[in-house]
């Protein structure tokens, strides 16, 4: 167990090293950092001075080491555009994104797994068939179209919910939360549904496919031959065996939620890190792009670690050695 986790940690460090190298190279290859720091009318001397301040004339390895050191302290420098420390900007907007992803993940997991199990067990019923057909539409709906449609129906047409922004957020120390007020919930519900729908359908289809797969196995046949009840077969035997692949995909999907939060946040003007990232890309604001990249990779690596540990809990073959 210990070595397994250690091995995974080593892999994670490798991933982070590569991602940090990529984001470091962003600074060097995309745009001229000096141009981005000073105005168009800066003199040659000013530029040279800034180059020296930034250490841009040092060997590339020295620069990378310095970048890594700063990164480990959470220091990504100043945003080219807003001229404020990037780590501050991210921290300010982090709660909005995390809460959005959290609520969406809950919706996607609860609804997705429930419907997936149902359609997997009641394979032939018309409800299952219609759920499946609808789910295929769900996979085919781009996130931004869902967002636009929901805004049009619930905000423009019915005027039940706000169309954008994060009103009703309450401050708890440095963390601003939407989850403690009715207004906050009114604001978060549309973007959360928008974000969750695509992942929900994916999870649903995956759980169903895995259920069907497990149902074909010999041990299910043997369980039947022992006369066990459908309930025991479906839940004790089949569902547990679908968990291992499902956990993997769910890990990936939560990552997917973070990615698609960029789009959802844009559609709903949700003041999170995704919106900030898209704006940064627009203006080639490299420090924010780099920091966001590292931040997303870090989240992913953490999720994968949790997934690996869950494997351990679920599957005795890994826990006890084959």
């Amino acid at each position, binding site marked *: 167990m210990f070595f397994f986790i250690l091995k995974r940690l080593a*892999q994670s460090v*490798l*991933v982070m090293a*590569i*991602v940090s190298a990529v984001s470091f190279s*962003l600074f060097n*290859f*995309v*745009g001229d950092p000096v141009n981005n720091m000073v105005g168009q009318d800066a003199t040659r001397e000013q530029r040279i001075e800034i180059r020296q301040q930034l250490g841009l004339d040092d060997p590339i390895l020295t620069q990378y080491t310095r970048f890594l050191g700063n990164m480990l302290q959470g220091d990504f420098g100043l945003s080219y555009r807003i001229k404020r420390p990037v780590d501050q900007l991210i921290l300010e907007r982090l709660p909005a994104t995390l809460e959005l992803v959290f609520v969406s993940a809950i919706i996607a997991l609860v609804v997705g797994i429930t419907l997936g199990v149902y359609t997997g067990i009641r394979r032939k019923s018309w409800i299952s068939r219609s759920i499946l057909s609808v789910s*295929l*539409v769900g*996979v*085919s*709906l*781009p*996130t*931004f*179209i869902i967002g*636009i*449609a929901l*805004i*049009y129906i619930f905000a*423009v047409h019915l005027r039940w919910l706000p169309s954008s922004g994060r009103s009703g957020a309450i401050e708890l120390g440095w963390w601003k939360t939407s989850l403690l007020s009715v207004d906050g919930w009114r604001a978060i519900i549309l973007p959360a549904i928008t974000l969750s729908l695509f992942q929900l359908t994916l999870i649903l289809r995956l759980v169903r496919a895995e259920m*069907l*797969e497990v149902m*074909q196995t010999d041990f299910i046949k043997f369980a039947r031959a022992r006369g066990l009840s459908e309930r025991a077969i479906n839940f004790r035997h089949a569902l547990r065996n679908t968990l291992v692949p499902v956990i993997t995909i769910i890990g*990936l999907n939560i*990552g*997917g939620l*973070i*990615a*698609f939060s*960029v*789009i959802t946040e*844009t559609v709903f003007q949700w003041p999170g890190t995704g919106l900030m*990232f*898209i704006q940064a*890309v*627009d203006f*080639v604001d490299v420090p924010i*792009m780099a920091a966001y*990249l590292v931040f*997303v*990779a870090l989240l*992913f*690596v953490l999720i*994968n670690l949790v997934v690996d540990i869950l494997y351990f809990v679920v599957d005795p073959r890994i826990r006890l050695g084959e």
Partner: protein
Amino acid sequence: MSLDRPQDRPMTRWERMKDNDIVWSFLHSPGAIIAASITLIAILACVFAPLIAPFDPFDPAQISLWDGKLPPAWIEGGQPQYPLGTDNQGRDMLSTILYGGRLSILVGAAAVCLGMVLGVTLGVISGYVGGVTDAVIMRIADVQLTIPGILLAILINGIGRAFLPIEVRDDFAVYVVIIAIGLTDWPQFARVTRGATMVEANKEYVQAARIIGLPGWLIMMRHILPNTLRPVLVIATIGLALAIIAEATLSFLGQGIPPTTPSLGTLIRVGNEYLFSGLWWITFFPAIALVVLVFAVNLLGDWMRDALNPKLR
């Protein structure tokens, strides 16, 4: 139990096709036929857009601002020559959708092809050669999969645009988008191909080929590659749907195809600005076109996955 009946004469190509389980399953699955028809019609309509479309939306001579923001023909104020209405600049919606769809399909297909060629090549090499080559290729794929595809596409696309001078940015936007999506696609193909290759490479027909003395590249090309294509085909179909969505998403975010030669995503982005003022059709019709297109491709991919999976048959 005499199902495998060796007959007196070999079947002709056509008989073999009809006898093929996949073709049979296709001909007996209404969903698959509908999906294939929609996809085919959509592709044809878009390929022949210049012939079908009533107007050429890129020809300034055919556009008149006077006709701007007209609703669809069946709504009061609509005009019969613009069946789906016009956009803010007075372009015929039907024509722009056909041209836009053409661009979306083109970009999607090109991106998938790029990802597929890259991924399948690396996947077969990785799976057959193994060892350090395999480890390096797969670690790169792992790291890339650590970052969600759409984010990476935005990033690559953004970097690509940053490299281009402002003047030519729009002209090259299509290629940048294709490369951005194609580059994010390859790990999927590589993983699947690698897995299938490793399964095939362990089969005895490959060992027989090795004993005959065939060189590695010939074994990969002639024996392994044709046997790994089924799963690749499924991924490519689903990948096409995802690539079309990815392109639309990039364009919607303003990172993709510019409004001068709009794709479906660009049209939706532009129309979105008029949604609140009640000009719903500028967004609605391109969105519907996009969803129907993606749905048909997905339906096809879904059926294909079931048909090609012998376990579920």
